């Protein structure tokens, strides 16, 4: 992948929290009932939990004062009911929130995938697979976790804090103020540690990114390491990075983990202060023992949510930053397709339906005529690859491109099917500007056979049928025969039903090439774009492949990036490319007579002989 932009540590903090949150919330729209009832049940469970703590005070007071057995039993029964209420609403509330999280994430994943399918090819040049995969997996995962836990935890915390405060106020305003002061002090500590922690967290992420990058690179090149006796040097720089990571992780984690004992014990301090104050008030008879018991219970309840939320904060921020990356992918511009020319089946033949003014249209028969007029193109604005390219291909003609690596051969073929948009000039298809043609229809008339064959998980037949989904078994077999693939497929353990593993790794390079020819054949395209394979194929298979390709080419307009002399020789026209320009054109004999670049390319072979 060209241009790995994201080499450094990932963004940890969201850039625009509010915007991201609002956008996230918009996903809940589809599940309003889940969201609202989830929230209600969670609120219900925390209210019931406050209620049960509030019951402690009257229960204990009945024991201390005049004992009333009936009232005691009644209180206990109420507590029992409350417990069931808590358990039930806890289950339903958590479940609903989790469902909401799952459904949201499910939807986001679906949107991301379908958006990815629509992104222009140039996007994939600029972004590495690893980067996209990480957004798809890690960021989505993180978001799921946060939605599942953090949202309900924050909710519970708010309800608990508010409810508990209310109950405390009822019991004793003076003691509540004391609690509030202590809490404020605790929050100050949390904030301080939080700041330290997020700084260390960032350092850790940088160290992790550095370490992972190094590991990835070294493992990929491990055989080179061996051949160059590089092991000791590799170990040395690995150890340096490893030590760096260890220190950064230890520091980051210490601050994170520290929060627990600090908050826990500070809440004990608070507890002690409150109990002393409470005891004093009880002795002054301004407070009952039962109330003190309840109040003390409240002081404990109120610090728990604060610890929890502060614990969640780092995760929450990381999740939001991830959500931002997800939305960034979703906001990437998709391929433009405003073509109004469509392909229609009229009079038993395919025609282009070209709208003209006043709602009328004109039918142009599909023939496969391609013309380039002064085409300029560059992958990046400052790097022009093609300069003023002019060429034409009449229906059924074969055009070969010849030239050294980087001359622009592949680029030309990528423009015909509009993988990339040209900067200037125009490309005409049967006389129609391809920008006017609906992309789906444009591509449905073309097939590409790439040098790097990519197959999909599924059976051999599935992979051939990829060219035309509705092809019958007979048609699939016929295509395989045409491509010379039938013979090897027959010898696979399950024939056409053999399952191919990820990217067809259980097939040889040559077999994969044959399959990709069959795939193109079943599509029966008007225009064929071929990138002939260079090496890594043995001679016999090479022969099969070239025969297959020759059969496939007959009767179609073909653009071929040629490596075989035979292909070049019988082409209608040969384009010799150098640095984005067609420097020579003509058929084989004409070019040999010109004694130019083409001649010397051939002479290179001659001289070696």
């Amino acid at each position, binding site marked *: 992948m060209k241009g790995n932009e994201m080499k450094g540590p990932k963004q940890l903090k969201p850039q625009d929290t509010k915007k991201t949150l609002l956008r996230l919330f918009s996903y809940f729209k589809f599940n309003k009932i889940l969201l609202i009832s989830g929230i209600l049940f969670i609120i219900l469970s925390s209210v019931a939990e406050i209620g049960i703590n509030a019951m402690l005070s009257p229960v204990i007071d009945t024991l201390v004062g005049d004992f009333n057995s009936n009232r005691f039993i009644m209180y206990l029964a109420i507590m029992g009911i409350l417990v069931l209420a808590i*358990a039930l609403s806890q289950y339903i509330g958590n479940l609903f929130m989790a469902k909401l999280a799952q459904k949201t994430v499910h939807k986001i994943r679906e949107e991301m995938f379908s958006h990815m399918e629509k992104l222009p090819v140039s996007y994939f040049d600029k972004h590495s697979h690893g980067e996209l995969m990480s957004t798809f997996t890690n960021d989505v995962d993180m978001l799921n976790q946060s939605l599942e836990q953090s949202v309900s935890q924050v909710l519970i915390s708010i309800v608990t804090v508010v409810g508990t405060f209310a109950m405390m106020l009822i019991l004793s305003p003076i003691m509540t103020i004391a609690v509030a002061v202590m809490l404020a002090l605790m929050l100050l500590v949390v904030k301080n540690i939080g700041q330290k922690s997020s700084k260390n967290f960032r350092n850790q992420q940088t160290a992790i990114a550095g370490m992972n990058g190094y590991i990835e690179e070294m*493992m990929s*090149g491990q055989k080179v390491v061996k051949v160059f006796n590089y092991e000791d040097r590799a170990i040395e720089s690995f150890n340096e990075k490893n030590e760096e990571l260890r220190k950064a992780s230890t520091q980051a984690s*210490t601050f994170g983990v520290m929060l627990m*004992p600090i908050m826990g014990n500070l809440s004990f301090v608070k507890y002690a202060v409150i109990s002393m104050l409470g005891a004093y008030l009880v002795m002054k008879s301004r407070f009952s023992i039962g109330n003190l018991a309840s109040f003390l219970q409240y002081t404990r309840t109120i610090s728990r949510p604060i610890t929890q939320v502060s614990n969640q904060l780092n995760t929450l921020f990381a999740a939001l930053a991830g959500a931002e990356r997800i939305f960034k992918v979703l906001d990437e511009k998709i391929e433009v397709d405003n073509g109004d020319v469509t392909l229609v089946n009229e009079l038993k033949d395919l025609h282009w339906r070209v709208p003209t003014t006043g709602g009328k249209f004109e039918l142009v028969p599909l023939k496969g005529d391609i013309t380039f007029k002064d085409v300029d193109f560059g992958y990046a604005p400052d790097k022009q690859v093609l300069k003023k390219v002019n060429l034409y291909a009449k229906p059924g003609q074969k055009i070969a491109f010849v030239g050294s690596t980087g001359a622009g051969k592949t680029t030309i073929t990528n423009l015909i099917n509009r993988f990339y948009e040209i900067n200037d000039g125009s490309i005409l298809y049967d006389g129609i500007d391809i920008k006017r043609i609906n992309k789906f229809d444009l591509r449905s008339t073309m097939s590409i056979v790439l040098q790097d064959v990519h197959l999909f998980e599924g059976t051999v037949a599935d992979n051939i049928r990829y060219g035309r989904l509705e092809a019958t078994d007979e048609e699939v077999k016929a295509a395989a025969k045409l491509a010379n693939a039938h013979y090897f497929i027959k010898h696979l353990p399950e024939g056409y039903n053999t399952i191919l593993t*990820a990217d067809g790794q259980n097939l040889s390079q040559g077999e994969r090439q044959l399959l990709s020819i069959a795939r193109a054949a079943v599509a029966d395209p008007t225009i064929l774009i071929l990138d002939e394979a260079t090496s890594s194929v*043995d001679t016999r298979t090479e022969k099969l492949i070239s025969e297959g390709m020759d059969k496939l080419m007959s009767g179609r307009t073909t653009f071929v990036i040629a*490596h075989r002399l035979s292909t070049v020789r019988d082409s209608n026209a040969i384009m010799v490319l150098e640095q984005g320009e067609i420097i020579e054109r003509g058929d084989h004999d004409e070019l040999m007579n010109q004694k130019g670049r083409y001649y010397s390319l051939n002479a290179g072979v001659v001289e070696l002989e």
Partner: protein
Amino acid sequence: MRKLLPFMKKYMRYAILCPILMVLEVIADIAIPYLMSLIVDVGIANRDINYVIKIGSIMIFAALLGMTFGIISSYYGATAGFGFSAEIRKTVFKKVQSYSFSNLDKFSVSSLITRLTNDCNMLGQVAMMSLRMAVRAPFMMIFALIMALSINAPLASVFMIAIPVTVVLLGIIMVKARPIFIKMQSRVDRVNAIIQENLIGIRVVKSFNRQTHEENRFKERNDSLRDTALKAISTIMFLFPVLTIVTYATIIAVLWFGGKQVVSGSMGSGELVSFITYITQILMSLMMLSFFFMQLLRGSASAARIVEVLETDSEILEDVNPVTEIKNGSVSFNNVSFAYPLSAEKALKNINLEIKPGETIGIIGSTGSSKSTLVQLIPRLYDASEGSVSVGGVNVKKYNIKTLRDKVAFVLQKNVLFSGTIRENMKWGNENATDEQIINALKQSQAWEFVSKYNDTLDYKVEQGGDNFSGGQKQRLTIARALIKSPKIIILDDSTSAVDITTDAKIQRTFKEELEDITTIIIAQRISSIQHSDRILVMNEGEIVSIGSHEELMINSPIYNEIYESQQKGVVG
């Protein structure tokens, strides 16, 4: 998991101190509810304000002490945990460096990456969690139980029911949830697989207009992931309500039985309140334990993968008294046969071959004819199964491996460059190479032609894997990198396949004219790359079927003729 414990050695001090301090923290934490009960039952009951202040101050002191222990303990825990994973990572990396090619074939690159990153991190996390939770939870439970017993032994008998019930219920939920979580993982893998597939094959998808088809395929997998995830969640979500019910049921029971004792005066109300606090602590620690076991479960898979790496040894062993000098670049194969590990079929059969110093040898043959296998035996990337391979008249097994590989340069078929500058990459061949030497090598491999065009020439940045170069440029750079070693033998394994014919011819000429002292072995698909070699080996199915010059082979080798014929329609570039 146990096999990995020795890696804790370096951080043992922290690993021991962390739980000890933790226990001290727990003791302080446990004492607090008891102290509180004293305030209520003794201080308030006797209206003794001094007593209340005294106990209260002890409480604060205990809490501060607990906090100090807690902070130090978490620092030690993190130190031990991350130290542990760093030690493991270091050892695994070192181990992988010692791997032979066949070891590397066994583990795929991506699996080694996962082991070094995710698995090592996971183990560090588990270690840290174990140090904290596995010690904290049982201690917390035991101390809380002791306190509860000392407050009121008969009342503490509620735990004899509450604890087993909790353990059983948590156990049931976890046993039920486990297989669903495993299934969920495989669903996640399926979703990731299709994303990966589409990322790689996006051009194919687009050119065949299969976006909708792929979206439907994805949807099916995405839906089944959601369904399994929902199932897993609805199971695991039972944890909290179950714990809530058990905890409060125990509290109500304690209120019921304890309440009667309070009424009869045999128990203080403060004691009752602190007893309730202990209930929460005991049941919470049980929950902590169950989380810990779940962590351990996740960690054990990682541990198994790490141990697998550590227990794999390279079978390429160095001689006890190794030879450290190579006399000349001659190579000989005596009755060499070779089979890849786990393969019954012989990849090489009875190879006999003598190569003179400075000779240029071409090797040609179809894929699977073991051309690469043959040459990989020379720098001992693999060891011959039978027979012997010698370099400079000495069996390769007698050499110091470093010496051997320094003098036998090997340009791999699947070659990579590393991120850094061109100069840094070239120095892989020789750490002390001067710019002059580097430029010379680049010239010899025809790479200087494009490198010299960069503004920063040798300082030009190479991206990871060398992705910012074309295939041909990359091959020329890797040949230069090998030449910098100033080897006695150089092996090019299909290393000019992406180089255009004219440049390829220039490279071949350089080898023939400038580097005539170096024994050169070239594997190629194109006859033009090797036809000027002194001798050409034609290989077929693990055997050398013909040897001779281009002219000789044209006369007496049918296979060579067949290849030649097919390529005469040959390559243009």
